[in-house]
């Protein structure tokens, strides 16, 4: 299955006239500053002095600095201090990509995937994501994994999906860790392994991901792939509920009914002391 092949997907914010109107770009002609460089441009950018950022980064970009080239591309893409221009954005990202800039490769992958500023080309999109992934960019790895998982712009291939999502999971992407947990649970793209599933759900839960906290809470309560521990289970369910996970609320109530006052208090204390792993 290849969901996007030959489709003419048009997906943009063009109709949100409000955004364009309110944020209509205006170059702020700021006084000239000497010296500078990339950091000067960054400071100016963070202060909203886009004209200075543009000047500093343009000078650097012309000398082949890929970081400056990438940021200039973003300025044109988002219309920051310049007239929004996809062509200009793509042009600067292509230059940055030649220097191996990971984020430029990633954004070019998206541009090719959606045909924004370039002709839609799924193979090129995949190529850009793979180049960024090979340079260790977890977000590209995760994109590839999800695209193979649902057959978005590529032939559906669960083994490929597992391979790329696992890379992102190992890089610490909590959604990827959660997804790997599900793949191990269901035996998708790999053999089913409830212990591995629990391990990855726990990894994502430790990063504060509510969905994973609910999953590991339920597994701890059942002793499914992990040593049963009711207090720990309740702790995770309390945390997931606190993050607004609806199913966790019911799970938390059901489990709490089975525990003693002391166990409930202990779980509450543990939840209060929880800090997401960085």
């Amino acid at each position, binding site marked *: 299955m290849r969901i*996007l092949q030959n*489709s003419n997907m048009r997906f943009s914010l063009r*109709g949100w006239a409000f*955004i364009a*109107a*309110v944020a209509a770009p205006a170059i702020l002609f700021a006084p000239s500053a000497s010296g500078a460089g990339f950091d000067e441009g960054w400071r100016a950018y*963070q202060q909203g002095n886009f004209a200075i950022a543009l000047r500093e980064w343009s000078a650097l970009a012309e000398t082949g600095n890929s970081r400056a080239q990438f940021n200039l591309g973003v300025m044109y893409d988002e219309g920051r201090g310049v007239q929004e221009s996809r062509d200009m954005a793509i042009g600067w990202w292509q230059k940055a990509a030649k220097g191996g800039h990971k984020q430029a490769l990633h954004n070019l992958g998206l541009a090719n995937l959606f045909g924004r500023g370039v002709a839609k080309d799924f193979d090129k999109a995949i190529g850009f994501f793979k180049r960024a992934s090979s340079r260790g960019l977890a977000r590209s790895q995760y994109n590839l994994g*999800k*695209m193979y998982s649902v057959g978005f712009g590529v032939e559906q291939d669960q083994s490929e999906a597992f391979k790329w999502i696992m890379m992102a999971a190992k890089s610490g992407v909590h959604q990827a860790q959660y997804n790997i947990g599900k793949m191990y649970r269901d035996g998708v793209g790999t053999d089913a392994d409830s212990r591995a599933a629990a391990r990855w759900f726990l990894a994502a839960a430790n990063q504060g991901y509510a*969905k994973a906290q609910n999953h590991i809470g339920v597994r701890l309560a059942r002793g499914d792939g992990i040593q049963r521990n009711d207090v720990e289970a309740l702790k995770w369910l309390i945390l997931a509920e606190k993050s607004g996970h609806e199913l966790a609320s019911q799970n938390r109530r059901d489990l709490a009914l089975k525990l003693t006052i002391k166990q409930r208090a202990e779980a509450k204390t543990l939840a209060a002391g929880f800090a997401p792993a960085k």
Partner: protein
Amino acid sequence: MLKRSITIALFVGLMAWAGTAAATTPDGASKFIGDLSSRASSTLNSSGLSLNQKEAAVRQLLSESFDLKLIGRFVLGRAWKKTSKEQRVQYQELFEQFVLRSYSRRLGGYTGQKFNVTNAKNFGKKDVLVTTKISRPSGPPVEARWRVRLRKKGHKIIDVMVAGVSMVQTQKSEFRSVVKRQGVSGLIETLRLQVSKFSAQK
């Protein structure tokens, strides 16, 4: 018979009360938009905040002021009924990220703009349409209209219109087109990919 009449009267009274409670007034909605504008201006014009901090603050402000769950459900249209519970959770999560990221990026770096409420009138049975004039240091002023509804947690924006173009209707039309070709899973994946784009890097 008397008992039944009392019950009906109580029911009608309760409904009338509930109707009043559920509807906002032009004054109430104006105040809500006015307060929101003041907070946004204060954030955007703060010299002590970096661009990233301003964007985060705007994101938080928008998150509190828009009823994104209601909007998200509406723009998905009839497809909502065909989505699984898990898909709905995924979709809502990504839709919120998509909207908040788009708005905060566009607005966060913009300083010096002033918002003035110029009009407010009832819109339909429950809502009020508040008109604001947004003046900017450069360029002509922009008129935006905010559709406000009183929800359980207070006033919420449920649509924004500029030049007669509704954000919600436009988005609904775009989403319908994606769902028609790729289904809800395609829309979810599209949203997820869209929000993965990188912004400026240090």
